[in-house]
Each structure stands twice: as structure tokens, then as C-alpha cells.
């Protein structure tokens, strides 16, 4: 379960954010199916050998965003449907994410075209995985 999370404690991105982003990626690609059970905070923290408060913070953000849902007494699950995000909020999220990515691209010295090409590839990858075609 924890393999797909591939977190790196020494990365500049905080661990809770890595968890948040990885779960989003796994949901987006269909690797985590709608309504499937997430590992408990305790189990995932043990698997990854990280502070459970960090996992809880990542999960909390995903619950707030509607990507995950908490069922009382049962645990945390992937939402049945992708969250419906109001247009204004979606634009703000996309803008923030794009700025973070653009900053990364600039700080490691990537050319603009190279950076844009990568986004295209990533989107293509995710969509293909979701459709279930050849990876």
C-alpha cells in the first residue's frame, strides 16, 4: 500500500504535502479506486516510519478537499465521486499549483518549453492510466 506513496523526508516539500500530492496522484490515475479504503493513519505512519501527525495532516487536507471521506468508526475512504470544486476555487488551486511547478522549473534551470512539455506528458500519463489503456 505504502509503496505508491514514495515519500522523501529530505525533500523541500513537507512530508504532509507529499502525502497529499501522492494520494491525489493515485486517485487521479485510478490506482486508488473510488470508495476504496485508505490505510489508517497509524498503519501508514508505521509503514513510512514517519510521525502520524504528519499523515493525519495530509489526510485532513484531502478530506477538506473532498478527495477522501471519513466514515465514523470505519475509517478513511476515497470519495465515491471526484469532488466538485467551484470554478473560482478550482482556478485558484490550479494557479497555485502552476506557480509551485513553475518555481521548481525555474530553480532547477529548466527551459520553459521543457517544463510545459512535462506537464503535457504527466496529464497524458494520468488520463491513459485512468482509461486503462497501455501505460
Amino acid at each position, binding site marked *: 500500500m505504502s509503496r505508491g506513496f514514495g515519500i522523501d523526508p*529530505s525533500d*523541500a516539500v513537507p*512530508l504532509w504535502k507529499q502525502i497529499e500530492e501522492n494520494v491525489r496522484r493515485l486517485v487521479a490515475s485510478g490506482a486508488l479506486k473510488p470508495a476504496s479504503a485508505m490505510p489508517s493513519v497509524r498503519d501508514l505512519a508505521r509503514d513510512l516510519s514517519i*510521525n502520524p*501527525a504528519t499523515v493525519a495532516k495530509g489526510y485532513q487536507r484531502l478530506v477538506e478537499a473532498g478527495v477522501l471521506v471519513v466514515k465514523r468508526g470505519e475509517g478513511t475512504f476515497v470519495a465515491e465521486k471526484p469532488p466538485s470544486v467551484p470554478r473560482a476555487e478550482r482556478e485558484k488551486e490550479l494557479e497555485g499549483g502552476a506557480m509551485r511547478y513553475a518555481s521548481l522549473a525555474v530553480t*532547477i534551470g529548466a527551459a520553459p518549453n521543457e517544463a510545459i512539455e512535462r506537464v503535457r506528458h504527466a496529464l497524458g500519463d494520468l488520463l491513459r492510466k485512468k482509461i486503462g489503456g497501455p501505460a
Partner: protein
Amino acid sequence: MSATLSTGAAIVSIRSLVVRYGGDAKPILEEISFSVPKGSVYALLGRNGAGKSSLVRCLLGQQKPTAGGCFLFGEDVWKRRARLMAKVGVVPEDPDAPPSMTARQLSAFCARIYPTWDAPAVEARLARFGVPAGTPYGSLSKGQRALVALALALASSPELLVLDDPTLGLDAVARRAFFEELVGELADRGTTVLLTSHDLTGVESMATHVGMLKGGRLILDEDLEALKSRFRRLRYANEATEDPTRYGQELSDFDAVKVKVRGWGVEAVVSNYGDETFTKFAALEGVVDAEASALSLEEIFVAIAGEASPAVKGNA
């Protein structure tokens, strides 16, 4: 009265702590002040001789401060040691017990002292660790002793766990078991932890706060996430000047802690990084091919504390 503490209250509070031995002019600890909030994992780092051991001894009420004091749950440790220590679990740097006693006998012995002792939990933890409860302490390996110490430290359901370099010299299996148990404890009880460690990889995954001692002074006391977000390694070629002694002036906005001139250009560790500052910097006349990369806690420690951490040999 027992102090009730709200979330965020300080479990540990070190106030202007000074420790001086004999007639030494220079104190071992100079005016140290910091606090450990409830539910946090505070990692106290420092090279050997930085003053960590003296601080831990004072914190556990084993040593009287020359000035200032250590407060646990709001009370002075030196004055109320016995009562306060009942709420603290300790894994010492070199766990020690009578060599002929087994872990089970040690647990039974402690059960008479601590009212909240959970002997079955000790047995369950030892079984999880694969450490025999009936083997004399003296016949256990170093890793097994550390795990026994952890099982005993957790048996009284402590509100504060003090871990003094607990994974030093442990093999990978024992280290993994130690951290798994610690994670479980944090998940189940939200125990506050103060640890000293050479194992910066472990610290980086577990700590919420970091303090750094150097030469008896606390040179850093910060949230780990904030610390990591403001440190970066910058690499760039400087084509603005021919004079190597002037390299680094273009870094003034970044508060560089270390600048090295290499054959290809300049490498610097900066302590005040920001994306916007970097964008401006990268556009400066003469700054070419600027790159910024993240630093691990180990690398930050080396940059600030000055020399390689012993972690490299201790926990390879």
C-alpha cells in the same frame, strides 16, 4: 495539584539554564531557554561536547543547574523530581540494568513503584520486538537492550518520553522496530517526545521541532518545516567579477551560512531562501545558470554546526 494543560501548552520549559562545572570560566550551558509544546516531537541536536548530556541530566532532575531551571508540566524538576518523573518515560543513551535480571523481572520490579504500570503491555511489546522476556539483561544484544528500555519507558503510559540517542549503534532491524513502536505510541497517545540523536534521517521523519546546541549555546530553536523551507543550496556561475574574494556579495538577501568557490562557480548554503528572492537573484547581471536545491536536515546541521555529523559512521 496536577497541572491540566491545554493543547499547545509547554510540557517542557527550559528557562535561562546555566551549567558550570567547578571553577571553569566557560559554562557548559549558557542561558538556554526553549520549550517543548504538548504533542510535539522535539529533537535536540548538537555535536559531542555541545552540552546535550548536561541538559538532559538537568531535565531529568539528576543535576542541579548553576542558574535558571528546567520545568516539567509547569513545575521545577529539581524541587519535585520524584513526583514529576512518574509522568516521564526515559530511554537513556546507554541503558543499564542488573545483568542477571530478566526483562520480566525488571518490569515486575518497576510495577511496584509506578501506580499506572502496565506489565502485560511490556510483555506484548517484547513479543512484537522478538526480545525474550526471560533472558537475563546481561545476555541481550545492544539492540535488544534498547528495545527493553523502550518497552519499560512506555509501560507507565508517560506524558513525556525522553529518548537520549536511542538508536545509536542499533542495527537496521532494531532501529526499525524502535521507530515503529514510537510511531504507534504517537498515534495512540500523542505522547510528547524530547529526543537527542545522531540519527538525523530518523529525526527528519519524526520530529516536529528542532533545537541545535553549539558550544553551550542554543543556536537554533524552530519548527522543522519552517527550518527546511528557508534553507537551500544554491549553485551558480558568477561572471560579474574576476575577484573571488568578492563572490558571495550577491547573496546578501539570502543570509548565506556557507559559501564555497568551486572551479565552475559558486556553491552556497543559504538560510533565508524564498522563491521570489531567488527569481530576482537568478536575473542579476553576472549570475548565470543559478539552481536551488533542497537540503536534508543532515546537510543543514553540517552547514550550521560546522563539521560532519558522527551519524555518518554511527548509523550507516
